[in-house]
């Protein structure tokens, strides 16, 4: 069977039959019309002006296979028409459609259930249309690469520096020898230092691929080596095998230099990943630090309360998507208090309904809450279905930025910040508010507190509600990095107990230190031992540690101690 796979061209062409036939049922008549139109347009262009030429090319975009389309893209780029950049950008994003009624190529942006249409070239508004009236112009990876390189070439002379910078970057990524001449012209006219540097790097990346002179190449290698990131490393390693013998040592020196630099940053990157994993553990465990740590309730349904928080986020986003799409970036801010309220109420109901009858009977509590966790899971499964639900990342939580040699993703950064804020607020509530005072009083000596006039059952309910509410807020954060499915809670329950037990039952600071320690330790083990073994090592370590110090890192007196 090995010999049977078709070669490149054939595969692309064959597959092309499928997209163009996607809507055959509704499309037969318009297809004909469109072909006629294109034929007409082509007829006109042979005898008419330059602007017409671009339009004909645009109209030819939907025709033929991926390789035909690739050719059209290069032809479009070759016209040098300034409107083409926007058009290609839309094509690369998959926003170009053919309107079925007249076969016109339009750019469509989703607006509610319909698409807002504009002319692909001029940007003229064309009203809206439902998706059934549009046929998408499909692109694959090869076309996206072609689009990227074409846009790079087209926008290299743009008056706006950020656009030029982006253009230079895409030329750097593609490093296509054909763009060398263009780059030289652009470089001569460039004034912005940042853009100039990027262009020089792109030029260097291309030069080491061409058959330029040894000295020119050596200079290019030095320039890349000075850049010192992974991309430069990739280019140098790629050039190494085919380079002339006298250049080999220069390249090797460059590679060694970059690798030294990267190794240093790798350590820091690991610490960052560790802190980030630790903050997730902290978020998952901090609610449990209240219910289990302070109150001594073994709450196996803790994970499910986290899950309820995540589903609240989903519900909020669902309402926002259908009714107020403009508010999407604030969806998490809206979901946070709601999730706190919902889960705190559920928590209070659980405490009043089940747990208060079982104080002092840890085994029964364990079984009852475990049963409750199954109940909650199945309830959510019945209401929302067993599948994952899509919770989107607001724009300020997507993507990454580079800080020196570190690559930091926004969602992780915000989760660390959020975890620390939640921790600080919780600490303040426990130490600075009357509720916190009463909680600590009840925890330390229930009968004394009771005789001082504190309504201990009320305090119990409030404490459990607080712990659950915080678990719900953790769910909002976790929905940003994990699945929102009925099983969400299960994956965190063991980790949460591990953190609380390791940190010391009843001590919030212990939970913080415990979570961060476990996170960092896990991330330092992972590159050597692999993800599976790293988890096992951590578990073994905790078991041994608990043998040495049964009360965890920071032992504290509390109700659990009295019991």
């Amino acid at each position, binding site marked *: 069977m090995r010999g049977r796979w078709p070669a490149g061209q054939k595969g692309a062409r064959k597959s092309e039959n499928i997209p163009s036939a996607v809507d055959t049922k509704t499309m037969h008549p318009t297809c004909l019309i469109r072909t006629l139109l294109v034929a007409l347009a082509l007829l006109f262009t042979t005898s008419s002006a330059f602007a017409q030429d671009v339009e004909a090319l645009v109209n030819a975009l939907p025709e033929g296979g991926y390789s035909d389309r690739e050719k059209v893209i290069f032809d479009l780029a070759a016209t040098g028409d300034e409107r083409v950049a926007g058009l290609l950008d839309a094509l690369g994003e998959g926003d170009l459609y053919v309107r079925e009624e007249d076969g016109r190529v339009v750019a469509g942006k989703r607006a509610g259930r319909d698409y807002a249409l504009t002319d692909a070239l001029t940007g003229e508004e064309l009203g809206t249309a439902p998706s059934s009236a549009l046929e998408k112009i499909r692109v694959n990876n090869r076309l996206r690469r072609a689009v990227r390189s074409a846009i790079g070439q087209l926008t290299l002379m743009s008056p706006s520096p950020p656009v030029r910078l982006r253009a230079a970057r895409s030329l750097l990524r593609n490093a296509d020898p054909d763009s060398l001449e263009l780059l030289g012209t652009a470089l001569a006219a460039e004034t912005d230092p940042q853009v100039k540097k990027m262009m020089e790097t792109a030029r260097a990346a291309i030069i080491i691929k061409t058959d330029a002179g040894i000295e020119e190449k050596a200079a290019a290698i030095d320039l890349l080596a000075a850049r010192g990131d992974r991309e430069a490393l990739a280019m140098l390693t790629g*050039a190494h095998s085919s380079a002339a013998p006298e250049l080999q040592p220069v390249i090797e020196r460059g590679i060694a230099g970059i690798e030294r630099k990267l190794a240093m940053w790798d350590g820091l990157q690991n610490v960052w990943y560790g802190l980030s994993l630790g903050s*997730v553990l902290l978020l998952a465990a901090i609610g449990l630090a209240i219910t289990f740590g302070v109150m001594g309730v073994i709450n196996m349904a803790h994970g499910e309360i986290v899950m309820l928080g995540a589903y609240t986020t989903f519900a909020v986003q669902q309402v926002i998507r259908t009714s107020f799409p403009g508010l999407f970036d604030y969806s998490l801010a809206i979901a946070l208090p709601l999730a706190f309220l919902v889960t705190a109420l559920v928590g209070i109901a659980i405490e009043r309904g089940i747990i208060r009858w079982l104080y002092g009977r840890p085994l029964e509590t364990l079984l009852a809450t475990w049963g409750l966790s199954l109940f909650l899971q199945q309830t959510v499964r019945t209401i929302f279905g067993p599948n*994952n639900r899509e919770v989107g990342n607001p724009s300020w939580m997507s993507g990454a930025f580079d800080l020196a040699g570190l690559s930091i993703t926004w969602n992780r950064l915000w989760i660390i910040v959020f975890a620390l804020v939640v921790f600080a607020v919780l600490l303040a509530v426990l130490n600075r508010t009357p509720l916190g005072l009463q909680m600590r009083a009840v925890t330390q000596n229930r009968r004394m507190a009771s005789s001082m006039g504190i309504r201990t059952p009320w305090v119990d309910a409030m404490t459990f509600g607080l712990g659950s509410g915080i678990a719900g807020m953790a769910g909002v954060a976790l929905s940003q990095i994990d699945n929102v499915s009925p099983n969400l809670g299960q994956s965190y329950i063991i980790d949460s107990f591990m953190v609380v037990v390791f940190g010391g039952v009843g001590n919030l600071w212990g939970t913080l230190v415990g979570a961060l320690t476990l996170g960092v330790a896990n991330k330092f083990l992972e590159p050597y031992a692999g*993800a599976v073994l790293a988890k096992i090592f951590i578990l073994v370590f905790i078991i041994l540690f608990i043998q040495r110090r049964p009360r965890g890192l920071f032992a504290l007196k509390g109700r659990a101690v009295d019991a």
Partner: protein
Amino acid sequence: MSTRFTRRAVLAAALAGSVSLSAGISYAQEETIKVGVLHSLSGTMAISETTLKDTMLFLIDEQNKKGGLLGKKLEAVVVDPASDWPLFAEKARELISVDEVAAVFGCWTSVSRKSVLPVFEELNSILFYPVQYEGEESQRNVFYTGAAPNQQAIPAVDYLMNEEGVERWVLAGTDYVYPRTTNKILEQYLMDKGVAAEDIMINYTPFSHSDWQTIVSDIKAFGSAGKKTAVVSTINGDANVPFYKELANQGIAAEDIPVVAFSVGEEELAGIDTEPLVGHLAAWNYFQSVDTPENEDFIAKWREFIGDEDRVTNDPMEAHVVGFNLWVQAVEKAGTTDTDAVLDAIIGLETPNLTGGIAKMLPNHHITKPVLIGEIQDDGQFEVVWETEEVVPGDAWSDFLPESKMIEADWTAPISCGNYNTETKSCGGAS
């Protein structure tokens, strides 16, 4: 004493009454052919398997609309093994010996299949298994309607090698039998194709792994060696969403390092915003977006049955459609639902795949399928960018592993063996 006696008498009478009542009901009803549905409706695997249960109900409903089978109505018997592997065996036993089903459609994970195998062998019943799996198995009572490795993994690797020019490979998987066996086959295959050992990185993660930062940045580092790199992902179930989210956040675009997945279909993508994932790939034998009259008809009827206009379809669903059609044909041909007769009748039967081509039941209990490579689109669907010219016959025992190269499965006379060793000419060749 007397009160106890009367109480017992009342109880006995009530019992007798209920027995005769239920007997009466079953007489009043017309006789049916029972079909077992063994898919988890709760627990971890409910996410994938619930849809398959609905698919079976849908298929049985459709068949009954056509007048049933052998003049009788079909009746689905649904049980919930709750993602608990030993419970699969118990529930299978219950279906076969208590409910006396004619055939069972079910299982998703390989471990659940392995757990029910002895039951089907012992009680001599039939199982249709609809999920792509690691191969290296062929059992008399099981029909594998999902893809074997040569119908999914190998063509996908060929595509990346020929079309995308990939030279460096990351094989990332969840730590259990399917990814491990598949990666073993792939590693051997790549080595045979001349890929150096240092150009292959193999990585395993636990189930539901959610912190992908280190691994994704390792992939990034591995990809910066100046050679085109791709990731072959056998990551299963829940772990996919955080994996793809991390890929998107660390800015790994499909144009630079494409990821081809074997366990990510339309259902899994429903939980992710696919905008940043456009261009990553999946290899299956079915995509919802494939345009054939059979598929269009199936999607329309399925949506009507389930009452949801946006409900997606996926590859294992198609496997059930094909498996069910073949079973119906086999029963019609044999004129009975008797296991041995159906086992004999089904081999060589044909039914159209929903994606074109004909699915034929082979003597090794696998079927012929086309292989499709699709790119993820921003609407959560796949766009087919490549497909095999002809259907590919499923190969139970991989030809790329030295220990299974000489083993063939053939359940027709005279061999009638799931692991026939072509070198020693004897049955039982799997050492």
